[in-house]
């Protein structure tokens, strides 16, 4: 156990800043998950793999000589169609079924995605260099990569843009109507099938943005999708569906937790800590609700 963080308190500032900036990125993925969960009642295990795929799109652009930051515009456009196709192929058959069916089906999709990415992009850990440099704070003792600030900034812009879009546009209104009551919306002339496809597409597009940002701030690897799924799932169950400020806050909380776990427990336990946190949160909620003789549903 490395307790350097208590000997050098300046590291706490470092961990906090890293955690908060990372957390905003997680919140963006979680927002997509909350959207599809709320509208279609689907838990998408392949969420993280969509993120990684989005990241690889940006990475491909980087290889082709285009600055990877443009990925935040290109990647969501491609990912929207990937999500749309995925909906038409598989997801539309599991929408009104048992949630477990959707979990297993998307698990299968996740395996296919991982393996295809492994074929196309190889099993190496890759990163797209943004060459944005770093900002030094507090007498050079805290280093902050500018790419992380850029990522958090872009995430906030996309989140706000999406909220406005959901409030103002016709499709946004249709999506919200379907989320409230799919049957009633259908009766009132909303093409719910189209709404579902668009929702899944928008979710995939958000994953694309997040992936492009991850490709310049963190690293990409075909098999690291599942932790992103679990992170977004965790954020959604803590924040609830459709509560955006809470999603942002719990995203930052998760980012903080991870960075501190990284320093205190060691990097090898970082992913393990994330998964254990999920178990603890669920069990905590379960005990709290069981006092009222209720359960999570």
């Amino acid at each position, binding site marked *: 156990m490395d307790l350097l963080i208590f000997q050098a308190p300046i590291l706490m500032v470092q961990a906090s800043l890293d955690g908060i900036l990372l957390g905003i990125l997680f919140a963006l993925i979680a927002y997509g998950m909350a959207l599809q969960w709320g509208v279609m009642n689907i*838990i998408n295990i392949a969420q993280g793999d969509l993120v990684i795929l989005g990241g690889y799109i940006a990475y491909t652009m980087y290889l082709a000589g285009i600055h990877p930051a443009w990925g935040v515009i290109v990647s969501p456009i491609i990912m929207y169609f990937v999500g749309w196709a995925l909906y038409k192929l*598989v997801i539309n*058959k*599991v929408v009104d*079924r*048992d*949630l*477990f*069916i959707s*979990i*297993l*089906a998307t*698990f*299968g*999709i*996740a*395996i*296919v*995605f*991982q*393996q*295809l990415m492994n*074929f196309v992009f190889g099993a190496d850990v890759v990163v797209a260099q943004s060459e944005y440099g770093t900002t030094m704070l507090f007498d050079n003792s805290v280093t902050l990569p500018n790419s992380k600030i850029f990522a958090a900034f872009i995430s906030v812009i996309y989140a706000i843009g999406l909220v406005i879009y959901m409030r103002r546009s016709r499709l946004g209104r249709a999506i919200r109507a379907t989320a409230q009551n799919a049957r009633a919306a259908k009766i009132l002339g909303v093409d719910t099938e189209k709404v579902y496809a668009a929702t899944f597409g928008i979710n995939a597009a958000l994953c694309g943005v997040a992936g492009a940002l991850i490709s310049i701030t963190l690293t990409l690897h075909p098999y690291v999708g*599942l932790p992103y799924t*679990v992170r977004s*799932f965790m954020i959604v*169950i803590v924040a609830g569906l459709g509560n955006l400020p809470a999603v942002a806050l719990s995203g930052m909380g998760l980012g903080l937790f991870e960075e501190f776990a990284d320093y205190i427990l*060691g990097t*090898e*336990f970082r*992913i*393990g800590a994330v*998964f*254990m946190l*999920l*178990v603890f949160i*669920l*069990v905590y909620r*379960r*005990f709290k609700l*069981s006092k009222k003789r209720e*359960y*999570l*549903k």
Partner: protein
Amino acid sequence: MKQKDLILYSGLIILGLAAPFLFSAFKVQLTYLCVLIVLAMTWNLQGGEMGYNSFGNILFYGLGMYLTASVQVGMFFPLAEWTESGGEKTFVHTTAQYFQGIGVGLLVAAIVPTIVAGAIGYAILGLRGHYFAICTLGLGIAAGEIAGGIEIIGAGQGFTTPPFPAEIVDPEARGQFFYFLSFLVLVLAFMFVKYIYGSRFRLILNAIRDNEDKAEAMGIQTMKYKIVGWMCSAFFCGLAGGIMGGLIGYIDSTDVAFDGREMGVFMVLMAILGGKGTLWGPVIGATLFHFFKEGLWTFILGWQYVALGVLIVVIVVYFPEGLMGWLREKYPDRFGEVIDEKDRKAQVEIK
């Protein structure tokens, strides 16, 4: 009916006992098959009968694997030095030591996961539906990640289980030993599950699956039975894991022991393929799955995971009732179901 059953079971047991001699080149595959059937059958106990779809039985499987190997080594040699040497055979088990070790190891591998299931059961089984599924998924993966960071059991570099004693020169002996061990566990598991299928316990589990609140209102202490059901699964998962650890000879934290991406999904998939909530469903499902997997894997080398993913999607989306469910729909009288003609016509009209 009774006599027919007797013929069927004795025929299967004779086939099982003769199999390693008939197909002596496929002993390892047959051992895998036995283990897969055990896993599918015990997953079905709480996934199919109790309605608690767990992705986390891999936790007990991996735990059993590590425990058997650790006990087998730790009984005679210092464990830390063994794993540090990373498979360099600095210590050699004698024949007696090897079998004593694996015997005690399997005993521990059966008991400890059962206790673990009982201990965490109260907290975890209070979750329902997909929360339970996700929570157990998290538990299985967390266990793999944590085991990958613990030095004494080999951390990231893995754990080499003791090699089969060199004093036994017969090259067939190793395969036969592991086959009969797994076959024994399979027979025990089948007898146990069959016993449960004829008992009140199964009805209670079904009541929990169909409507837990009503079951509780009828005076069933649902939590108690849920925990016992999970402990039954954990017992056999631990044993299966222990055997697989010895058979494979090498334990890696995320790729062999807590392999949620393969074994953890396989057991769910096999039970669903055969038909959840039936006695024979998981057995047939596991057999079919294993044949399909082994038959196809070699032809599509490299693409096997893509095929697996597609297979999962196809099975789950198009055959959620499984083979037995499909047969049941087709020939209901074979399953002892009486269907009212009027009722069926009315249902067809509704459709």
